[in-house]
Structure formats: structure tokens, C-alpha cells
């Protein structure tokens, strides 16, 4: 029913998480574990690439809210990129663009890490 996968890679010393599929209450714990392990390993610069993310529920949104503070406390950030219009709308309604940097593509997110303003 809810298929979800996270692939991890690096891009310019930034950890990139590729989310694929449905991020809902059932699959949110997987993303949580991922964030937790990144934080445990002192990786605070994270880009979440949402190109293949087809759906996100409030539980999924909550996961970002749960970890953003820790990451920012350590001078890092979670940036979001490559959202489809539908997924962006969900983030947008909640006001995520006010709190997070949401870019159209990954490269832009990388640039933002390199040149924070």
C-alpha cells in the first residue's frame, strides 16, 4: 500500500536524501531514523530531494519539524528541493516556505549551503 524508500548520497559534502513514494504515518518513522542517524553522525547539512515523493501527510511534515531545530542549532540546515506542484502545495499551505528554504532543484540548494546569506 504505502511504498516508501529513502536513498542516501552525498553531494559536495552535503548529505542528500532522495525520498521516493508515500510519506505518511506508516512510513514517517523511516525518515525519522534517517535524520536521527545523520545527526548522530554529526551530519548537519542535509538536502531532501523530493523529486520522487508522491505524497506527504501531516505525519511526514511533522518529521521535518521535529529535527529542524537540532540541525540548525549545529549550524546546519535541512533544505528541500525538486518538489512537484502537488507536494509543494501541501508544504506551502502549512507555511513551510516561511521556515525552510525550498528550491526548485538540488543544485540551487547546494549553492545556498555554500553561500548562505
Amino acid at each position, binding site marked *: 500500500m504505502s511504498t516508501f524508500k529513502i536513498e542516501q548520497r552525498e553531494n559536495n559534502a552535503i548529505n542528500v536524501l532522495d525520498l521516493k513514494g508515500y510519506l505518511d*504515518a506508516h512510513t514517517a518513522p523511516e525518515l525519522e531514523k534517517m535524520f536521527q542517524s545523520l545527526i548522530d553522525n554529526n551530519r548537519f547539512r542535509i538536502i531532501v530531494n523530493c523529486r520522487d515523493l508522491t505524497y506527504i501527510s*501531516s*505525519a511526514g*511534515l*511533522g*518529521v521535518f*519539524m*521535529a529535527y529542524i*531545530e537540532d540541525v540548525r542549532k549545529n549550524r546546519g540546515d535541512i533544505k528541500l528541493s525538486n518538489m512537484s506542484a502537488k507536494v509543494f502545495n501541501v508544504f506551502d*499551505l*502549512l*507555511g513551510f516556505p*516561511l*521556515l525552510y528554504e525550498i528550491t526548485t532543484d538540488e543544485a540551487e540548494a547546494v549553492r545556498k549551503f555554500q553561500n548562505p546569506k
Partner: protein
Amino acid sequence: MRRDMTQRTSGIKKFLLLSLSALLFLAKFIGDVVVSKLDIEMGMLTVLQVVLTAGAFVCLYLYIEKVWRRDRNVVRKMGFALVLTLVVGLAGLILYTISSTGFDIKNEYALPQGFESIVFANLYAVVFGTTALFVLLTVRDIIMSKRRKETKRNFRIFLLVFLGAIVVTLPYRPFESGPVISVSFTLLIFAILMNSFRLSWIVYLTKREKLIAMSFSFILFVLYIPIYVTSVGESSLIAQSLSYYSRQLATFISGTTLFAATYFGMTFVTTLFHLPTAEAFDRKNIEVLSLHNLGKLITRVFDFQELTDLVTRMTLEVCEAESAWLEVRDEEGPSRGMGRAAENPESSPVRTVSLQNIDIQDIGAIVGFDNGAIRRMVSETRRPVVIDQVAGDDRTKHVKIIAGKINSMAIVPLVSHDDVIGILYATKTMEFGFDREDADVLSAFADQVSIALENSRLIGKSLERERLMRELLLAQEMQRKLLPQELPSLPQVEIEALSTPAFEVGGDYYDFTMLDDEHLGVIVGDVSGKGVSAALFMAEMKGIFLSLSRRHTSPRDFLSEAHSSLLGTMDRRTFISLIYAIVDLRTGVMRVARAGHCPMIFRSGGMTRFVKPTGLGVGMGSKEFFSRTITEDEIRMSSGDVAVFYTDGVTEARQENGEEFGYRKLEEIVARSGAGSALDIRDRIVLAVDTHLGHKPPDDDLTIVVLKWLSEHTHP
């Protein structure tokens, strides 16, 4: 009815048999008297006498078989045989002493010396014959109590030989002998011996029973030797009486007594030799019974603590240990196995769940040594470990504090589905207290314990699930009650609403309030997440709304205050999306603020649009940031204007193929609603969503609030 009939017919049969045999005995008696009075040719009448005797005893035998109770208790049977023998023996003795006349042995015939002899002979025959029958049947039952394939066959052979020995005496006179008789007698001895080794039932008696059996069999053996001698000697009066009555019967009786003497003699000797090992055997039996009992208890005890306490208590019993304790691995470890080669045993927390006659500190000292070396050892090998001398063994010599109390130990792993789920420990004050049998028994015991523990856990989980289900339903009920029980009835505005909860507890919320006589507040919200916590936040939101809404004429101020209040209670991943509109009922001016919620749909004149003021969800961001970013829109309503509030349960309602209902569709329905009433519009939306879902129930809560402004007079 049928049972009564068969019981009655069998009752009739029994009566008939008994009467028939009694009659035949009587006939024989009369016959004997007649024969003695007359001087008739013996030949023919002998045949008649034989037939009568045989008939009488056959009927008697058939009758006895019908009333014979198959008591399985061998010792009780022997007791019965003993009592019978003593009583009959005594009776015989009394009869013997009071009789004065006997028999003349002439030409190997036995001729009665008087009427009295005949009477006594008949008495002896019936009484001893019947007794012999009982004794034979008793010995048969004892032999058959523990039978093997050959047992029945061997007994049948005996019966055949016995019958043969009886039958071959037919052509002979009462005291005549011959080679055939000798041969048949020899065969009989062999047949008796062949059956006298069927003594395996002795093994299974308890020590006490063995002692009793030994005593009984000794007495029986001692009694039957003289009884046998008395039944065969030519000079014995009893033998004479019996042979006179019927040589066949005499053979039967003497054969039976010989069998009894032999069998009970063998029984005595065998029980005597079994006594030294009787105690060890009893002990083994107790072990087996304990295992069996545990097996039964397993199916009845589900409470985990009760079960573990039972296990440790039974461990003491099963191997006669002085102390015992049980450790189990908590399931919430990262891996489901203990001591797998690559894994770190410390990562699998183990706790002592039950102990008998030992302190938890002592346990810690024994097991904790070298970071649980003993545990590791047992977990890796998955086999029980026995330590014969605790003080001297490398693995335990550190255990000085409890010297004296513990000198040998057995440690047994509990394995289920290839995982070590726990460890059972038993200790004894004695060195070398656990032998190989103990280790085997403990292993078998441990297997059953593993099953029991797994069962208990599974049942616990299932009960937990049930409990959660019930809580869920309770929370749903709670939630329903928090929503408005009735809609405000106002002349200026038509209000209709609907909220259908999904099966799982969701977090939709809507409410109305009159801030004062002229201001109506309408709030719609959606608590993130599901379950009881969502319902609780909703309840909190309602409380905040009811208590704080009157403080603010501006919806964004209210939402800011709500955010501040809730920040303390909510965790970081939870938020509540809200949309709050305050309508001035005199002017028709609506101020609306949106905290992360779906945008309001507003239709005025021919235009329909989404009203989407900026704002974070309540619970997101700091107090300052939230207040800074939230905005408010102001809308002037004219007569006929419609405002629709809803939750994402509407727009995200998903068909089977995954397609969502969507914002466009919703907007269209409102746009095309024309002059429809608020109720009309609400129902159109509901219908459309239902159609979209294929009339299947939705996954998420659905909430729709429709406002239709009616008033024509608007004050600028």
C-alpha cells in the same frame, strides 16, 4: 431406553447364568448321592457327571466375567486375591476339622464313606473351584496389565495346555495315572513358567506399592505351596474329595494353585530385587510428571509474571534444586537474538524476571562476572551447562560470596525459533548435584518453558492490541462530543456544517462562538497525526477557543495567542492547522486568518476564489516568528455570498486509482452552486466526494462548513 433394555437383558442373562450353574451344581450333587446309593455302572454316569460339572463351571465362569470389574490397580488385585485365599483357606480348614468321614480309595476310585463325605466334597468343589476361578482370572488380569505382543498369545497357549491337561484326565479314574498325564503335567509346568515372567508391571509401581506388592506376593506364595500340596496328594482328604467330585475339577484347581504359587513366587523375588532402585525410579517418574504438569499449566497460565514464577518454582521441584532464577531477553532490543556471533550481547538487555531462594545481588555477582561470560557461553552454544564444583571451576570461582550455599549449578538456555529468549539457572548446595539425567530433564523442561514464554508474550501482544482498539473507540467517542452539538441560528447568515470522522481517530475540529451580540466566530481546524494524542490536542484547542476567543476581535491575534498557549503542550512534530473567521453581523465584514489550513473558498457575485492569507500552522515556529508571519484578510460580504471552510479530508479524498478529489473540483462546485442554500451547497460537496470515493468510506476525517450571507443591509 435402549440402554435400559440392554441393561435389563444383561441383568436377565446374569441371573440365568447364575441360576443355571446353581442348578447344575445341584444336579451334580443329586447325581453323586444317587450314584452312591445305587450300584450302577460307572461309565455312563461318569460322562454325565463330567458334563454337569463342566457345564456348571462354564456358566459360573461366564457369570463371573459379566460381573468382573477390570480394576487396573495390580496391588489391589493381589490384595483381593490374598484376602480371598485367606478366607477360603480358613473356611476350608474349618470344614476339614468338622468333617469326620472321608473316602475309600479302592481300585483308584474314590468311594464316599458316608453321606457327609458327599456333602463336604460338593462343598469343597464348589467353594474351591470358584475360588480357583477367581484366582486364575486375577492372575490373568495381572499378567495382562502390562502386555506386549506375545502376552496374549502366551496366555492362550497356557489355557490350551491347561485345557489339554484337564481333558486328558477324562478316560482315567480319579487316582489313576499314566504317561499322558505326566507329559501333560510337564507341558503345564512349562506353560506356567512361560507366563510367570510377565512381571514388568512391577517396574512402574511406586516404592511404597513395591513394598506392599512384595509383602502380598510373599504371603500368597507361602500360602499356595501348601495349598497346592493339599490339592494333589492322594492322602489328603481334600484332594480325595475333589478327585471324587471330578478329577477334571481337581486338575483345574491344582493347576491353578500351582500357577498362583509360581507367579506370586516370581513376583516376590522380582519386587525384592526392584526395591533398591525403587527410589530412583520414583524420582524419575516425578520428573516426567512434572514435565507433564508444566505442559498442562502452560496452556492455562498467560500472565507473564505468574508464568515465570511458576517456572522457577517448578525448576526447584524438577531437579530438587535449592535455588533457581529465570532471565529473559527484553524484546525491544535492536536484534531478536542473543549472542549471535556478530552482535554485541550487551545490546540485548536481559532482566531477571523471577527468582527463588536467592537475592538479586547474588545473581548479579554470579552472572555478571566478566560482562556476563556465563550468559555468553550458554547463548553461543545453545546447550545447557553444568558446573559441578562452583568453587573450583574457572567460570565461577569468582563466586566467593555465596560459597557454602552454591556448589553446583545448571544453566539452561531457552531457545525459541533459533533465538535464545532467556536463560534458566538452578543451583544446589551439594557439589556434583546435577547429573546427566538432570541436565536432560532441565533441557526438556526448558523447551516447554520456551514455548510457554512465547505464548505468553504473543497473548500479551494480542491483548495489548485489543486494549488499544478499545481506547481508540473511546477516543473517537470523545472527539465526536467535542464538536458542536447544534449550529448557530442567526437571521443574517445561513450556516451548515458536516463532519464525518474516519475510522481511526483523526483530528478534525470546527466550532462556533458569539464573541458578543454582533460578532460570530467560526473556526475550522485539523490536528496533525492520528490517535488519542490528536484527540487530546483537539480538546485542548476547543478549550482555548472557548476561553480566549472573546479576547480578540482580530482572528490573527487569537491564533497567535492560541499558538503561544499550545507551544508548551505540543511536541515539535505536532501542529494544528486552523482557519478562523470573525464575522461582523451588522456589516457583513469578515476578517479571516489562516494558520497553515486549507484556504477558504469565497463566492461573490459571479466570482469564486481561494482566500489564502499567510500563516504558519499553530505549533510551528517560535511565538515571535508565528506572530510576525501570520496575516489577516478582510472581506465584505453581500447578500448571497458564500464562504466555504473545509479540511484536507475533502480535497485529499482518494479514489482507488489514487486520484485525489482536488481543490479545483471543490471550487467548481461552489462556483456552480448558484442560488443554492448553504445546506444545498454542503450536500453537493458531500455527494461529489462520496461519488469520487466510489461510495467507499473515506480514510480521513471530512469537515465542511458553509456560510451563506443573507442580510441585504450592510453598514459600511
